[in-house]
């Protein structure tokens, strides 16, 4: 790869604006007339929109892009694409078409851009979609991602905020990639940990979403920039509460070590500011708190489904090679909204 390195200083989903600022802005944006066929829009804090065309066909539309979070451009392309495609899977949809979103400095070596787009294209193909075009903007710094369109049956679309009391919560990927990459930027992360984080981020949520089809899943979201607790908070939607079993949550062990050394992102602290009031920790170590607030890039699915069905789905997820775990259960609305113990 030689010279083809990217300069990264905090990319991936750590580069997102905080949820706190965002919700203040979104509240004030004019909505226009309500369209009954818009089944999921930004009212539900979802990253994607679902629009019904006929009784059994809706399209799912999403986009995501961000600055580099790893130095290798091909790997960056793969991660950015897997992350953008994930929103389709979180809705229970099937990927159809994708368009590239590119910001790239005019003075930089175009081979680097080629590598980024090759990585992205491979993931779109793996997802079963067609890369149909895109736009490129000359910019001071590199950013890459996809706009993705998929289809879903509107009757079986997964919302992210409709869990039911008595549900079990399953998480399909380990947490802590944000902290590991943060530590890597200051030369503290081990090669093994970075490789494991990359392997996780380039894994599509395709098979996890497909396996959900066999169960009475009530709510699904993908865990990304707002952290496990941030997305969990959106899932509870003020209508439910939950208990999280900290010792059961899959994490990258090295992330805990770096959290104890305070190698933490700004985005993680913004997540704590945004959602911290809804959370009570009961005997949870500081490092685990930080991992639960850590912004994830291309994170796993968080699935809410009836407790009695959870072991069977968990078994299938594990057999497909995902390090999934049952991490908590949903209860009636109570205070605190999220109890981590």
């Amino acid at each position, binding site marked *: 790869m030689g010279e083809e390195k990217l300069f990264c*200083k905090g990319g991936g989903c750590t580069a997102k604006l905080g949820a706190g600022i965002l919700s*203040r802005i979104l509240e004030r944006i004019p909505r226009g007339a309500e369209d009954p066929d818009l089944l999921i829009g930004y009212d539900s804090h979802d990253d994607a929109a679902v629009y019904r065309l006929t009784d059994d066909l809706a399209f799912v539309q999403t986009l995501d892009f961000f600055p580099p979070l790893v130095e290798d451009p091909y790997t960056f392309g793969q991660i950015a694409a897997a992350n953008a495609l994930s929103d389709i899977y979180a809705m229970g949809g099937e990927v159809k078409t994708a368009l590239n979103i590119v910001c790239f400095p005019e003075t930089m070596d175009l081979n680097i851009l080629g590598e980024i787009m090759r990585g992205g294209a491979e993931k779109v193909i793996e997802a079963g979609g067609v890369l149909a075009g895109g736009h490129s903007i000359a910019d001071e710094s590199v950013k890459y991602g996809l706009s993705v369109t998929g289809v879903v049956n509107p009757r079986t679309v997964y919302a992210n905020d409709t869990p039911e009391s008595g549900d079990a919560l399953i998480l399909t990927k380990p947490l802590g990639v944000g902290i590991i990459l*943060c530590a890597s930027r*200051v030369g503290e992360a081990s090669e093994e940990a970075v490789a494991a984080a990359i392997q996780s981020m380039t894994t599509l949520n395709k098979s996890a979403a497909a396996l959900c089809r066999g169960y009475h899943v009530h709510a699904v979201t993908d865990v990304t920039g707002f952290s496990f607790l941030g997305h969990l908070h959106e899932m509870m939607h003020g209508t439910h509460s939950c208990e999280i079993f900290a010792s059961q949550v899959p994490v990258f062990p090295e992330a805990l070590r770096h959290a104890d050394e305070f190698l933490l992102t700004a985005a993680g602290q*913004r997540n704590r500011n945004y959602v911290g009031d809804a959370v009570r920790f009961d*005997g949870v170590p500081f490092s685990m708190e930080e991992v639960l607030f850590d912004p994830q890039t291309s994170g796993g699915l968080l699935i809410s489904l009836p407790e009695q069905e959870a072991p069977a789905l968990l078994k299938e997820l594990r057999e497909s090679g995902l390090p999934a775990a049952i991490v908590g259960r949903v209860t009636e609305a109570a205070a605190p909204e999220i109890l981590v113990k």
Partner: protein
Amino acid sequence: MIKVNAIGDACPIPVVKTKNAIRDLNGPGTVVTLVDNEIAVQNLEKMARQKGYGVQAEKLGDNQFQVTMTVGAGDAAPAPQEPVVCQPQRSGKKNTVVVIRRAQMGGGSEELGKTLLKGFLFALSQQDQLPTTLLFYNGGAALTCEGSGSLEDLKTLEAMGVEILTCGTCLNFYGLTEQLQVGEVTNMYTIAEKMTQADLLVEP
């Protein structure tokens, strides 16, 4: 005392530089870190609390903050699990609502009125009995926005649990919507509700 300049550094660099400085102290002492954003301040404070260091943060100006950490002799001791509560809970039981309807206090000289209001808001933050809510509307809306001399006092009040609400229509009218610096935007329904449900309505 060691000074650390972390202006322009993204997290976790400010924390890494500060940790290195604390190691260089080689014992008790003080490390003063300059950063350019509040989140970096919070990440530094988090480390200090976990490590049991004394910590004090101060805003020096726009995008400039100073965090002073004091490392004591006994700081090898493990940090307490729960962060120390910095501010005593002083909210009274009575539901007191303070209404700021213009940018000055009292009639007469505008210059004097502005100084008086600034003094009032500071004095308010020092009370044993804190109000439940502060409402800002019409000319008062400027007080919660960029350029207001009372932002620090209002942020202190907010940190102590006082609800700070500014009329959204007023912000919009004066073109201040993007300049709001403290508290939340509210509407006339909430303003009417807060005022009618107050045990005591205070207007300086």
